[in-house]
């Protein structure tokens, strides 16, 4: 059965958070919220787990640390510069390069995770998106079964939602 999308516009984040939480609690459909600023009430209502960005960052940093140590170590073995009885592989350069490359790839890993998980860059706007959500309004879009549409509308209006729009 085809789904229906219902949008409500809110003047503040608290109303949008109430609406999102209410729809989620009653299991009326899938909720997506839009806001011009990070709204912790909305995020708290819709996301209970920890973002996997940390895994991307950790993997990037781990890879960077490995490469930052392995490449200098390999070059020291490949063309030994033996000076004054010092060890062929000297530790300080490995620490310095390993740390810097770990930070570099950790940051880039985090950005890669952010872009992929946030589905960016995006060439098109989501259905029912209103550009005011980047400026001064909050939006909640609920994707639900047509049978649940009345309950969703009631829920959104009760939370203070205005300008309800619907798309089938």
């Amino acid at each position, binding site marked *: 059965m085809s789904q229906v999308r219902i949008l409500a516009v809110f003047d503040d984040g608290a109303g949008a958070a109430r609406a999102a939480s209410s729809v989620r609690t009653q299991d009326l459909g899938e909720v*997506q*919220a839009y806001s011009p*600023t990070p709204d912790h009430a909305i995020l708290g209502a819709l996301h209970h787990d920890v973002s996997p960005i940390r895994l991307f960052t950790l993997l990037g940093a781990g890879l960077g640390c490995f490469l930052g140590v392995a490449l200098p170590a390999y070059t020291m073995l490949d063309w030994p510069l033996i000076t004054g009885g010092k060890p062929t592989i000297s530790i300080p350069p490995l620490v310095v390069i390993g740390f810097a490359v770990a930070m570099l790839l950790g940051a880039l890993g*985090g950005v890669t995770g952010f872009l992929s998980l*946030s589905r960016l860059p995006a*060439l098109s706007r989501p259905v029912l998106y209103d550009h005011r959500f980047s400026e001064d309004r909050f939006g909640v879009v609920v994707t639900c079964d047509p049978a649940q549409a009345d309950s969703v509308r009631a829920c959104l209006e009760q939370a203070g939602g205005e300008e309800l729009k619907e798309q089938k």
Partner: protein
Amino acid sequence: MTARPGTEFRRLSDDIVRTLDPPGAVYYGTIAVLLAILGFGVYAFYYQVQNGLGVAGYQHPVQWGVYITNFVFWIGITHSGTLISAVLFLFRAPWRTGVARASEAMTVFAIMIGALFPIIHLGRPYFFYWLMPYINERQLYVNFRSPLIWDFVAIMTYLTVSVTFLYVGLIPDMAELQHRGPGWRRRVYRILSLGWVGSDRQWYHYMSLYGFLAAIAIPLAVSVHSIVSWDFATAITPGWHSTIFAPYFVSGAIFSGVAMMIMLLIPLRTVFGLDAYMTRLHFENLGKLLLTMSLIMGYAYGMEFFIAWYSGNIFERDTFLDRATGQYAPFTMVMFACNVVIPLLLFSKRIRTHLGALMAIAIAALIGMWIERYVIVVSSLSRGFDPAAWGELYQPTWVEVALTAGSFAGFFLLFLVFVKVFPCISISELKEGAAAHSEADASPTVVPETV
């Protein structure tokens, strides 16, 4: 009664978007002057490439001079932007919003300018890419044991992370400006916003990423100037070969970076009328930070002289005696005055909350820090182990002066262009602060005017 968030958001956006309005004649006049100075610097570089490094004032044993001084100075300037922005973000300091964006931009531009100087300093600057760790035609890699390679890796990493930190912070603002920004720039903002819509999923990952970038930037910033200090400390030259160089350089870098922040933010506040967003509290806090770093600098200077005496190393002792009483003594005195004595005025609350006085102290600190780098680089080299090698007083030539002036012009030019193209205060963070205040039914201004 507090305005509803939507209305408040609109007001905040209007205030910041207004800063992007077409500039007036004074702005274009300033740009023209800076371009002229920068152009002269570029000509000086062309002249140097044509005629060789001999046109600089190098004379044995001073083979590192103004260029390396500029390099260390500019890399030092980078240290307060991203670092302070990241520290304040992780500590959730509410006054961060007013100063963070401009400071992060300052960091990026200072790295871009600073990273040019090792290239300018090269005899054959067109071979700068030999620093990159790729395998060359003789199957050789760079020597990773060299601190110059550490520099290259650390500075490029810091530049990449700082640009990323700045850009990620700009994405939500770009999404707004694509609808509200002036003229043709909307298209540019649309591309730069990457299609950001501010969905809960995007904000959720965004907040996580921003936190990680901040956490990465802090140790990275500390490591970068430590590594720059090891360019000197790993050499056995008296005056350089010191274990305190890393923290000494890092504290000096934060000191000069804060001074540059103050120097950029005060005119920015005045010109754009951002009094509500960059309050005296911001500047008082920056003044306190400047004072704290100055005290640390004073301690480090004292320790350098103490260690030179207490170690019993005659070369070290003679170098520092010469620094205080020899031909470079006037520079040392100015350095002490600007970095240690004058900032003591900031103990007075009346002075540190007076923007004119704060600006004057910041400029003194910048002069003092440039001279400090000069003293470290030049005076140490001029008095090596062999007295027979001690030469004449090193005097910069017009080429070095032109390139130095050009670097300042380039830096201010980039900053001026930035504040007219991108919002100098994060709009989305202002709204976040306003929403928090709205919930608490308090003033929507992010930081209250307390002074």
